[in-house]
């Protein structure tokens, strides 16, 4: 365990990344504080000039209204002790995972079925292609009506986000397997089932991994938006409706620091789940690690 750490610390990529993040935070902090140490009068001539050119001064963005990282950190520490914040994490994570796992469980066999059977493709693919262009978020109202609970409705929309990507990747992956692998397996006495298990399945695995990673990213986008639209699904406690609702209610409640806390939390959650999938992907496709 010492070695990876040492190689990390001696890698220029790591240091470049670290420097860039620190620089970003410092600039942000300076920008957010500019209000305090820059007299607003300084900007009057500039604004007047732009006004004369036809711009309305209210149209200009102003980083001074964004909460500074230091105040965000303070707000964050404050919510760490609150159950509602962790409840939001738990609910979003649960929805993402249930939607994602369902998309894997249904999408992988479905994609494989489309790939191996012309009949299945003839029946299943047209419907799939007609529904695919509908963005998952357009499903939110319909699925709230359709599903008995709001919880199921959000999970369903999350599921849709990952499902299409996984199916398309599985199908494309299975189709692009080199014909010679099939011929070789056939010559060496493989049955249809052997070919499925020992050629199609492993041959599609890299695409399954890619499809899952992309699907996971979409899942986080979808869950946050669905939580905002649907009002979080929990009426009793405002903060219990997932990270998307956490951001929304912070906005409504005027707590701008918490908005940023929510945004960063989603960033961390998305990054961690992608990393986990990448790691799992490398583990199940060891032959791609070499090269």
């Amino acid at each position, binding site marked *: 365990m010492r070695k990876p750490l040492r190689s990390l610390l001696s890698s220029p990529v790591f240091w470049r990344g670290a420097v860039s993040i620190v620089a970003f935070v410092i600039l942000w902090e300076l920008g957010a504080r500019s209000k305090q140490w820059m007299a607003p009068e300084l900007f009057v001539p500039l604004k007047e000039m732009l006004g004369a050119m036809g711009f309305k001064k209210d149209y200009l963005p102003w980083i001074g209204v964004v909460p500074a990282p230091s105040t965000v950190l303070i707000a964050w520490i404050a919510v760490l002790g609150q159950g509602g914040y962790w409840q939001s994490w738990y609910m979003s994570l649960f929805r993402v995972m249930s939607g994602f796992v369902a998309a894997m469980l249904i999408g992988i066999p479905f994609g494989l079925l489309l790939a191996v059977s012309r009949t299945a493709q003839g029946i299943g693919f047209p419907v799939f292609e007609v529904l695919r262009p509908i963005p998952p978020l357009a499903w939110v109202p319909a699925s709230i009506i359709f599903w008995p609970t709001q919880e199921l409705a959000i999970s369903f929309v999350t599921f849709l986000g990952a499902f299409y990507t996984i199916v398309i990747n599985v199908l494309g992956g299975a189709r692009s397997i*080199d014909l010679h*692998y099939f011929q070789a397996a056939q010559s060496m006495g493989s049955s249809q089932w*052997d070919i499925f298990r020992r050629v199609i399945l*492993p041959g599609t695995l890299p695409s399954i991994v890619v499809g899952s990673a992309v699907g996971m990213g979409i899942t986080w986008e979808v869950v946050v938006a669905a939580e905002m639209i649907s009002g979080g699904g929990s009426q009793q406690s405002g903060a219990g409706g997932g990270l998307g609702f956490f951001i929304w209610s912070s906005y409504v409640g005027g707590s701008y620091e918490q908005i940023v806390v929510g945004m960063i939390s989603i960033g961390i959650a998305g990054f961690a789940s992608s990393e986990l999938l990448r790691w799992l992907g490398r583990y199940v496709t060891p*032959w791609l690690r*070499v090269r």
Partner: protein
Amino acid sequence: MDMHQPGAAALTRGRILIEDVVKTYPTEGAAVMAVDHCSLEIEAGEICMIVGPSGCGKTTLLNAIAGFHAITSGRIVMDGETLCSAEKPKAEPGPDRIVVFQNGALFPWKNNLENVIFGPVMQGKLARKQAIDKGRAMMADAGLAGVERNYPGEVSSGMRRRVEIVRALMNDPKALLLDEPYRALDSLTKSVMHEALLEIYYKNKVTIFFITHDLEEAIFLGHKVAIMTTRPCRPKKVLTVDIAHPRDYSVLTTKRFRELIEETSEAVHEEALKAFQAGEREG
């Protein structure tokens, strides 16, 4: 004169007769005739080299023998058994005829040893344990000891080719069908591979049907060299190479080898030129 000549009494398996085979591809517009009334006899245990210009129909002929594609008419017989004919245009692929493909077809997701034992395990001929023992032994024999646990992507292309040939031989085939297996290799690796192939061949007598562009390769390896016409393909000239096996690289500098090259290069060049001109006309 010695046991390495084909047709020796010891070998009775792997005699392939190609009789009047025609193959046309039904494409949109004009049908493409790839093989035209092609007849060729390949003796049991013979190395038969097929030389012909690009796109002439060599792979098509190999696919017919292997059973990957149907023929249009004619007949292919192996050891008295009809593989395909007008009544049954597509042969059944089987472990008695194993193909080594132009670009290689080792399963990248299996390590080299798992690739090598694939055939016997699939066919239920050997238990896994025995297959592993045999696979290790054959790999060691082919100079592949130490890379059993590596994936094909981890070893050199020359080694991959050898692994693939060992995988083929593990099926105890009557014939090996090689489709330009060394095309992508540099000439130095190629010369090493030629000797390695001959060494493997001397230990495991099988019939070898070997497609190539390279006339020197053909004469160095083959008992027989069939020079094919440009598309549609048919033997233009069949040359018997009267240089005794076992051969090694010293053959390349002998007078007889040079003479054989001279005798045939004219025919090869002529067909290549025709193929080129036909290509010019088409596109």
